[in-house]
């Protein structure tokens, strides 16, 4: 991937919470880390898990892994211990690169990882109560307490590893067909699955996005979305591929800070999701906002409500507004050209440049314009498959037009008008899509079943203007449990990423069942609406 931009060495590549880093620094640090990874046994195709916040070490880790010939496995920093453990085992990661402040989640996972695993952590790792190891030999970082994983492996300090290793040469053995990343996404059985993307597919996808968003090297792209979410990750990949500048923030939690940063750095591209736009519009209602430097605003994850667009034009008077749709399995499917927003209301547009989309009926026949069908995606951006899950890969990847070719069956229903513009209709399975992230009902139900006092639980998705779908939980609790919705929410948050925590809890006396004794989600839905 295009991290090696020697000619741009003094240009600022990223500004992380206000602190600028140049392309020269990025290359130098990434080459140091790549040499360190190699020295720790990372070879071509080995997985390196990156469980970090939106930080400078995270960026160095992504590019350091790629330059070493490794495959990065990016894990959302909100992920809790059990799932961290699952991903480490499933991916067979050789190294875990993480942040010290996430130690509460990753330390308990380490003893249960089956393969030998090295750990490098940025910042401070609280010392373990037992199993403390003697002080490190040399270059001991005062910021880092000694810490040992319960398995006995030493946790190395990120800064020290990078500083202490001379820059290596980037690997030359990687070709575009090699894996670059595993991006974990929720699966219907409850366990997440790793989407395999190659160097070729990711460079292609970033190039296609750059083309239709009309981006150039002078752009300053804001990213408040997690880098572990592919929408966030691609803001970085596009920036580096372009030689532009990324303005990276940890989250949108403190909007005043983001607004100040946008003004200070004259941000030109604002990527968001409807929940962020809702906060922006609500702030605008209290105190008018205007960001004239922004020329592109992008939305995905859930449809942008029509009345939002008018407000967004007030807040971003010079911006084109893009509506888009995608899934991790191919990064992005389609986008609506901003100039066509009025002509094609409700549409998410046409295929991104260099790709093709079409609809087929459930039995594989072409669908006439205006009728519903399942969306298929063809192009170099389609994933290779799910890591170690050929069964699930076969469910999503179907034979294409050419011998041996595989196209992506999105399992989403759409209709297409006579001009080829797509309109979302609904999903064909029970996966919930909320805030642009897929959520498996089984995963949330498992978390609820683990709470003492919960007898039965079932999850459905309900339409939500901001989230796409919101998660509603139906629970049957033990009579004397005294559980309320607030307690359930906090207990879920201890096990699940925030976007998976149900928005609503409905307490019921008994779970409706089908004749075979399975929970009937159809009856649950009817129960609420009647």
């Amino acid at each position, binding site marked *: 991937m295009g991290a090696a931009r020697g000619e741009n060495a003094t240009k600022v590549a990223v500004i992380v919470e206000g602190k600028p880093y140049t392309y020269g620094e990025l290359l130098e640090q990434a080459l140091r880390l790549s040499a360190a990874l190699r020295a720790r046994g990372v070879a071509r195709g080995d997985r390196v898990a990156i469980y970090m*916040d939106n930080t400078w070490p995270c960026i160095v880790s992504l590019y350091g892994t790629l330059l070493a010939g490794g495959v990065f496995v990016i894990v959302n*920093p*909100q992920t809790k211990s059990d799932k961290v453990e699952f991903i480490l085992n499933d991916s067979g990661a050789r190294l875990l690169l993480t942040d010290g*402040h*996430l130690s*509460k989640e990753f330390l308990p996972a380490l003893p249960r990882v089956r393969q030998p695993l090295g750990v490098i952590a940025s910042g401070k790792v609280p010392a373990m109560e037992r199993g403390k190891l003697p002080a490190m030999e040399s270059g001991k970082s005062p910021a880092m307490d000694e810490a040992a994983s319960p398995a006995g492996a030493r946790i190395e300090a990120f800064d020290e590893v990078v500083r202490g290793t001379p820059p290596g040469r980037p690997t030359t053995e990687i070709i575009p067909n090699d894996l670059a990343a595993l991006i974990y996404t929720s699966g219907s059985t409850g366990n997440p699955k790793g989407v395999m993307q190659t160097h070729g597919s990711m460079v292609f996808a970033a190039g296609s996005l750059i083309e239709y968003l009309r981006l150039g090297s002078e752009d300053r792209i804001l990213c408040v979305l997690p880098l572990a979410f592919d929408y966030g990750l691609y803001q970085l990949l596009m920036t580096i591929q372009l030689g532009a500048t990324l303005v990276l923030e*940890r*989250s*949108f*939690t*403190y*909007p*005043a*800070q983001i607004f100040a940063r946008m003004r200070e750095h004259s941000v030109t591209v604002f990527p968001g999701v409807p*929940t*962020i736009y809702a*906060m922006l519009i609500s*702030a605008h209602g*209290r*105190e008018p906002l205007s960001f004239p430097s922004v020329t592109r605003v992008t939305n995905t994850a859930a449809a942008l409500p029509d009345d939002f667009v008018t407000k967004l034009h007030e807040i971003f008077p010079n911006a084109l507004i893009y509506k888009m749709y995608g899934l991790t399995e191919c990064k992005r499917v389609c986008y609506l050209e901003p100039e066509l927003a009025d002509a094609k209301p409700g549409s998410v547009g046409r295929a991104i440049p260099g790709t093709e989309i079409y609809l087929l009926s459930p039995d594989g026949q072409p669908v006439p314009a205006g009728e519903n069908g399942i969306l298929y995606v063809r192009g170099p951006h389609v994933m290779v498959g799910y890591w170690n899950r050929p069964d699930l890969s076969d469910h999503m990847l179907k034979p294409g037009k050419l011998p041996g070719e595989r196209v992506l069956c999105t399992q989403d229903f759409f209709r297409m008008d006579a001009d080829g513009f797509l309109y979302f209709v609904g999903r064909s399975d029970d996966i919930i899509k909320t805030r642009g992230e897929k959520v498996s009902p089984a995963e949330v139900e498992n978390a609820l079943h683990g709470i003492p006092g919960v007898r039965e639980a079932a999850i459905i998705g309900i339409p939500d203007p901001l989230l796409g779908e919101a998660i509603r939980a139906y629970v049957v609790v033990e009579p004397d449990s005294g559980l309320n919705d*607030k*307690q359930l929410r*906090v*207990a879920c*948050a*201890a096990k699940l990423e*925030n976007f998976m925590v149900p928005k609503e809890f409905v307490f019921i006396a008994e779970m409706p069942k089908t004749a075979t004794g399975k929970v009937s989600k159809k009856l649950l839905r009817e129960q609420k609406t009647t």
Partner: protein
Amino acid sequence: MSIESKIRAYIGENFLFGDAAQIGVDDSFLDKGIIDSTGILEIVMFLEEQFGIKVADSEMLPENLDSIGNISRFIEKKGASK
């Protein structure tokens, strides 16, 4: 109850399943992963109700709100300037 213990009790009850002891006075809420953008709005509503202050959008910054200690100092400062 002091300002700090009121805030600690609220954070504990609403974000930590009643276990307020697991968060230090200067632990960053973002680092600990215990709040997101919805959570921060809930905290602001609580502060406005509990302490009779008004939190402006421009004051919604980590230095004012991202730890129990930061919130306590912010409340004291707001109280003093009233």
